């Protein structure tokens, strides 16, 4: 992966999404989606599937494209740049990573509807506002019944099915639960970007044996890799979002005249934007290096660099979008101005899967643990 330069595959993907975006997408659509019950457009999800995006990471056995993560991330970037509300990272990256690890008959049944866009799959794993101890859930699967509560589940909709982490026979397991399962109660909360974050309560939900997808070490590995992949994809999405907000704001600053000159000519303003540009460069470099680390050395080795990347990108995307509001002046504070959409999306993405403060501390803690382990 080369700094700011796509390889052939990445360029093809980017061309395909660019063509689709200019034909079908606008900020008007982003606003329309905010009024939809799921916060995104089920029809557009289907179109994305037809373009191969929902199956980009899924292995070819399930009809997916089976690209490595690094080849898939231009999609996340462009999705961020254009504020696509469809749950690409949650479903096509995070859930797909679990499904790839759980290749089985059930996998075919679950994965194919994701590839063709008839269903959305999402991973329910968090139980508290932290990414710590996600491998030790309190949700249990005993005697074929699932009980407990999951928080902060993204991508909930009428066509969403679930992958749920739980404890089964004292080991971590990941089970499949259809969205319409009996005993499942969903309480969605509307988020700043119009998406839903849902609390799921499982009360004796029946789990058929074939729906126990992963157990023990394989479940743990799949969960860790899914979070690692998702975090990096989210970083790419945030970089795309920040870059778009930055460009829109630069354009506005060049055209907005006060004191007889464009506000882009004031050095104080220019330097703030230069600093933010530096943050975008650091964020972009940080996640790209973390990605190299992940694909080369695996998620355990890459934990530190992934957390550092998420910390930087979370802070960077908020920094850029907040400054964007400031340089738009009063207009920036209106509901009509598009720039506000970027800030609201940034708020959601920067906190999802852990915010800056959490990940900075996590990166340093894991680095120190590594030092201790290495006997330093």
């Amino acid at each position: 992966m080369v700094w700011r330069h796509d390889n052939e595959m990445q360029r093809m993907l980017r061309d395909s999404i660019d063509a689709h975006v200019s034909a079908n997408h606008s900020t008007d659509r982003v606003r329309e989606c905010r009024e939809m019950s799921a916060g995104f457009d089920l029809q557009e999800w289907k179109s994305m599937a037809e373009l191969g995006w929902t199956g980009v990471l899924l292995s070819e056995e399930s009809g997916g494209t089976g690209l490595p993560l690094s080849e898939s991330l231009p999609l996340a970037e462009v999705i961020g740049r254009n504020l696509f509300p469809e749950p690409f990272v949650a479903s096509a990256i995070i859930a797909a990573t679990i499904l790839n690890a759980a290749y089985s008959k059930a996998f075919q049944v679950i994965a194919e509807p994701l590839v063709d866009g008839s269903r959305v799959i999402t991973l329910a794993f968090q139980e508290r506002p932290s990414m710590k101890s996600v491998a030790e859930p309190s949700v249990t699967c005993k005697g074929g019944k699932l009980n407990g509560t999951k928080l902060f589940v993204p991508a909930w909709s009428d066509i969403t099915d679930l992958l749920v982490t739980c404890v089964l026979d004292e080991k971590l397991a990941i089970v499949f639960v259809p969205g319409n399962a009996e005993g499942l109660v969903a309480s969605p909360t509307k988020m700043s970007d119009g998406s839903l974050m849902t609390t799921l309560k499982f009360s004796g939900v029946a789990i058929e044996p074939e729906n126990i997808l992963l157990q023990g070490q394989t479940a743990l590995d799949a969960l860790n890799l899914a979070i690692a992949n998702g975090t990096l994809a989210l970083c790419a999405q945030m970089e795309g979002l920040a870059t778009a907000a930055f460009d829109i704001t630069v354009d506005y600053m060049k055209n907005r005249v006060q004191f007889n000159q464009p506000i882009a000519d004031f050095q104080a303003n220019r330097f703030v934007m230069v600093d933010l540009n530096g943050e975008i460069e650091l964020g972009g470099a940080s996640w790209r290096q973390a990605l190299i680390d992940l694909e080369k050395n695996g998620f355990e080795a890459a934990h530190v660099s992934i957390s550092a990347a998420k910390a930087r990108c979370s802070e960077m995307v908020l920094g850029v979008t907040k400054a964007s509001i400031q340089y738009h002046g009063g207009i920036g504070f209106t509901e009509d101005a598009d720039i506000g959409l970027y800030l609201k999306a940034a708020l959601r993405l920067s906190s999802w899967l852990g915010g800056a403060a959490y990940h900075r501390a996590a990166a340093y803690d894991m680095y120190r643990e590594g030092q201790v382990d290495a006997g330093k």
Partner: protein
Amino acid sequence: MLENNHKDMSVLSDDEFRMKFRNWLETTYPDEWKNPVVFRLHGAEETRWLRMLYDGGFRCPGWPRKYGGMGLGLRKQLIYHEELERIGAARNVDTGATLLGATIIRHGTDAQKQKYLPEVLNGDCLWCQGFSEPNAGSDLASLKTTAVLDGDEYVINGTKIWTTMAPFSHKIFLLARTDMNAPRPQQGISMLIVDDMKQEGMIVRSITNLNGEAEFAQVFFDDVRIPATNVIYKVNKGWDVAKAMLGDERIFIGSPSLANQTFTVLEELISQMGKETDELFKAEVAKAFCDLNDLRALFAQVCDAAIRGVADGKTYSTIKVQASETFKRISDTLINVAQEYGASVGHPDLDGFEKDILAFFLIARPSTIYGGASEVQKTIIARDIFGPLAKR
């Protein structure tokens, strides 16, 4: 006759080259210069070190072999620097190789190549660079030093300042105004060579810096006469040469090595003070850690781009700003975490801790001033982002 007679190391694999240089450093590098509290080698020490590199066949990695260099591509040059960092080598300015030599190779006459390159290679001649003046710092083009042609000589008058290593240097190259009537300040400037820092009319007055070192100086030129042939490239085209002085090597000014070294000292300090888990400082140290991690990532990405020839001017400015600002911030954290010890002169009174943390803090200060101040770099980046100012 300038040709490098050592084996060509550019044909080795990257790993082979790395191990070869590493082995050489491990057997050759003097212990007393490792991880120095004194950051840089001066004068006779620098000459000794350059001579060792020369004898070992490891001198001037970026110069072509036909001029006596190692002829290494950027990737191997990076490995070269990584290995120096790994062994904890003291830095040396080496203006002769990185600035003067590279420029002579690109723009010098054959006579200049024959005369100047060998003595840079074997370390006999140390160079300094006379660019800044008391009233021409960031605004370098407003420089006032003049060189007037008198027969077959130029007569130089004026003064240069912040001339790094001038007290230890044998020769100086400088920018001086050779056409006083040029329409723009950038025009009418030439790059000139004075062959002897001690020649008549030259006065070097060393300046003690905030860290108590006398590394830089003010240099006075009072009717200093040089042969008219001591012009690099063309008369009145000195600005163009100065702008292009650093090619690919611009990248090394963005190296995270100083920030990295400072963070290592920060870790030692925390451990020495028993503050590893002190919540009061943990967030700050974690921030320093992430800053360093991301700087390293940016440097790696930019190096990759440079090797592929796709790094632009804005990128070099960005990495320079980030590397120096991060170095400063981490040294700030060092002082902050040290609490009362932070202002100790010399190493703090802590058992077994021998790092002069105040020196790190002080030496970090000018990193955002030299080599193009942060404000100048940001102006360059801003021009790239916004285009030129609408007014003017």
